[in-house]
């Protein structure tokens, strides 16, 4: 067993997914099975191999420093940004009060 219920609970909390004890009990063996299976990768000798960084040889293109050149990538569109918000007031998104 790669992961027990306590570990799954910790991961779920890190992933911000609330899970009941029942769900954890159900999920733990499933995840364990999957993780046990992927662990076969450990067999492969990769000491001479770099991790893949770009699947197709290609380098990062850079953009020009221009504001709002394209509405799809620019700002100045508050209505669109807020259009689907569960809570929006006075031009802000609203969230439950945060104590820092």
């Amino acid at each position, binding site marked *: 067993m790669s992961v027990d219920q306590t570990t799954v609970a910790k991961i779920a909390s890190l992933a911000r997914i609330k899970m009941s004890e029942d769900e954890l009990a159900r999920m733990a063996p499933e995840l364990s099975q*999957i993780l046990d299976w992927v662990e076969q990768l450990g067999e492969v000798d990769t000491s001479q191999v770099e*991790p893949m960084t770009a699947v197709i040889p290609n380098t990062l293109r850079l953009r020009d420093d221009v504001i709002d050149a394209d509405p799809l990538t620019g700002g100045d569109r508050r209505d669109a940004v807020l259009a689907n918000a569960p809570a929006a007031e006075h031009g802000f998104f609203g969230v439950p009060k*945060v104590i820092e």
Partner: protein
Amino acid sequence: MTELTELGVKAIRDGVAAGDFTAREVAEAHNVAVAAAGELNAFIVTTPDHALAAAEKVDADRAAGKQLGAMAGVPIGMKDLFATQGVQTTAASHILEGFTPEYESTVSQNLWNAGAGMLGKLNLDQFAMGSSNETSYFGNVISPWRRKGADGFGGNADLAPGGSSGGSSAVVAARIAPAATGTDTGGSIRQPAAFTGICGIKPTYGRCSRWGVVAFASSLDQAGPMARSVEDCAIMLGAMAGFDPKDSTSLDLPVPEWEANLSADLRGKKVGIPKEYRMEGTDPEILESWERGKEWLRDAGAEVVDISLPHTKYALPAYYIIAPAEASSNLARYDGVRYGLRELPNGAGLQDMYAATRAEGFGDEVKRRILIGTYVLSAGFYDAYYNQAQRVRTLIARDFEKAWAQCDVILAPTTPTAAFALGDKMDDPLAMYLNDVFAVPASLAGLPAMSVPAMLNGEGLPLGLQLIGKAFDEQGVLNAGLAIQQRAGFDAKPEKWW
């Protein structure tokens, strides 16, 4: 005149251009088919008006003597992973229910620019995670295909249309749409195409812009067409593809003239047969289809050679680390703050709201993958899991590189089995994952790969053959696919029961 819904992309486009029928007539016929196919549950939202408006524009342009686009008059289904402006976009998840984008994905925009119209948003596995279309919040898609049980036993079991592009495969196979968009992360175009007897191609990573496509695993996701012929796929891929400055992984290359350069003459070409794909337990009928495929390609003039892709066995486990890892991060944005579902239990703080929203909004398979992804990236495990998987991925890509010294295109089965019944594998995630064993290596290497229907098995269900090509060589894949299509003579279609 044949029924308009029997026509493919090319026939519709050419018929509209020739004035044999109007685009509006085509759209109307398909809207009727869509409305009558509720039982398949293939659409999350239907958009008959979109299809009609696009058709009217094409008809008007034609009347005005304007040049028509490559998809002019063709109504298509749009996988509900593509953001469509003003039309709900959900990724088949409760967490995005009601989300109406203020933007259009590059690929869908390209299709509209080419004269296509939208019949509706197609159901899929939630966030494209699944191989059977059983993880959608909006219910399973039911394959239009049914087994022909010789004894009538089990013949009527609902079958999986494949996944994640199961809505897409279902409507194209059922003659509800001539074509549909799909996305392929680890086989999500090819496997459903194989299950439903249609064609589907995943192009080279970077050919189609990912901008506006709900992300599953960024280094793997690619959009592609699903249609009933290789020619139709070539036409539609040409309309979808192209450089997009908004996607920094987009290939800055001209889109080749795939349709114009189609040729089933494979003289001088070498077709590689990877020995590692002959796995224990593979359905004998699948192996038979593979043998037939070799013959067909030989008949088309190709030389068939044996090759080896030694790390094939490790592709699936590497995929099930990399894809969930990327997904766990890509799906962090669904938090109930800016769009989509918000669950706010009494007295909940911000972090409680996140946990409640994501608990309520994500389905089990999505949660499973987020948890795996979170785990393999977490402190102390990153190197052993994620980095090791990316190293293995390098080896898998290298296997293909070496293979290209011996061959131009690779032929393999698309799936280890024909379509299975809904519910068959739902309680065994690992068994479900194994269904993508043949599809995943090409995804990990970013290579173009296609499934074309080869034959029906003894139960009357389609089997697909997969062609994998060199990076950027969609043409080679399409040409080999065309050679198979011409010789397989596959014209089976599901009997209408819905």
